[in-house]
């Protein structure tokens, strides 16, 4: 089985981080995996996206053009990639930043006000992890506890304060009923 994912939004939202967490968990689970970022001026705050492929087979082209899962965290990304999602795939939209509704009926669309949830819960900047929580619930790609453990093992001791925030964000996203 192969799952192609695209994470897209503004630079600074943690788009590349989200993709990296997926890739890491898949690697720990013994899957083949690739992570390909957009690079260049995007790093300075423009549009950012990354392609993640998780597969039981060898990964061919690492560039995802028609994703099984699309995470859209800003309007330009939504407009650019909404039509590219494979039929039967998932589209996860940060509805606090994107006030559009998809007219597609052949995909599963989920609206989660991740950025608003992050500020309400005093974990600003963690909308990306909230979205990851929802993604886990929708797709069942990884076991919740395993994914959480994988994510936390990447946090160095000097940043221990981030552990609770990440836990909270992932839980919020997972438990949100879209």
């Amino acid at each position, binding site marked *: 089985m192969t799952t192609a994912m695209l994470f897209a939004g503004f630079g600074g939202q943690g788009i590349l981080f989200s993709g990296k967490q997926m*890739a890491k968990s898949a690697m720990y689970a013994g899957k083949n995996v*690739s*992570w390909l970022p957009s*690079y*260049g001026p995007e790093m300075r705050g423009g549009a950012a996206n990354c392609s993640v492929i998780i597969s039981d087979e060898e990964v*061919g082209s*690492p560039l995802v053009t028609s994703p099984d899962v699309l995470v859209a965290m800003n309007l330009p990304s939504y407009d650019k990639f909404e039509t590219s999602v494979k039929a039967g795939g998932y589209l996860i939209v940060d509805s606090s930043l994107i006030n559009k509704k998809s007219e597609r009926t052949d995909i599963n669309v989920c609206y989660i006000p991740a950025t608003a949830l992050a500020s309400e819960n005093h974990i600003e900047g963690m909308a990306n992890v909230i979205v990851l929580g929802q993604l886990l619930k929708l797709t069942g790609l990884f076991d919740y506890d395993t994914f959480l453990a994988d994510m936390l093992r990447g946090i160095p001791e000097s940043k221990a304060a981030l552990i609770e925030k990440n836990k909270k964000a992932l839980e919020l996203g997972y438990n949100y009923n879209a």
Partner: protein
Amino acid sequence: MSEKVLMKGNEAIAEAAIKCGCRYFFGYPITPQTELSEYLAKKMPKVGGLCLQAESEVAAINMTMGAAASGTRVITSSSSPGISLKSEGISYIAGCDLPCVIVNIQRGGPGLGGIQPSQADYYQATRGVGHGDLRLLVFAPSSVQEMAQLTIEAFDLADIYRMPAMILADGALGQMMEPVDFGAIPQRELPAKDWAACGHENKRKKNIVNSLYIDPQELENIVDQRYERYAKIEETEARCEEYLTEDADIVLVSFGITARVCKTAIGAARAEGIKVGMIRPITLWPFPKKAIQTAACSAKAMLSVEMSKGQMIDDVRLAVNGQCPVEFYGRTGGMIPTPDAVLEKIRAMQAQL
């Protein structure tokens, strides 16, 4: 088995260099290669090595030459425009018979071009990276794992043949992350560097590292000797991966990241019943001529797929030598071909068979 780590291709080259004993890096930053020097700037001091950001690419390649002349392992890296700047120094390094590793994480050209992935420096790497009769060993990794493995291979072969080796990758391979297993580093028997200018302490005759020979006969003799080594390399060191070529009517030839796009396209074409396979050159010089010659005997057509306007296709045609038609598909300027577009080309060729 050692644990896999998720790394960028640029970082994998850097880590591999450290793991195989390289302690000197000289470079100048350029997208999409910069993570390589960034990684070494952090790591080299911790292992007693030196990572130096030179004032220019020209300075960096000449520092590389100096370090190589002293017999130590040394690496430099850049991206396309920077490699053009280094080309004079690379010719001197080849002319001095010095081993070193030069990394080119290619981007779109010519000129400043762009910063997205490209393979348009194929001619430069395999034909004209500097003036004079010279060759570089050219390795074309296709995954982050190979970025690491072939770096180690490049250091070894450079030492064995006393010549510069190039890792010719691209922005996608440099920037992407994949799991890497460094495992055990294969240990090779390497020749002693008794030619190195590293201080004779009055205990031996002095070694001189030089590329200047005013007497044309002397220079011809030296170049001839070098070409004997090149001939041996062409005989023994060409490497490629053959993928589903056995029954293939159409054989693709593709390297680096493009070969992975082709693999995806081949999977889709096979599902439609089209007999298609691929030869993926792992060394671009020496070019795997024999494998391509053999494939051309049974294939009905061949297709070179590149991120350029068609450069490797010249080597494919030379190897095929008219035995079957050779077609081309490519994108350039930083565009990565899509598997769908390659599949479309395969279908069109199948229809012509």
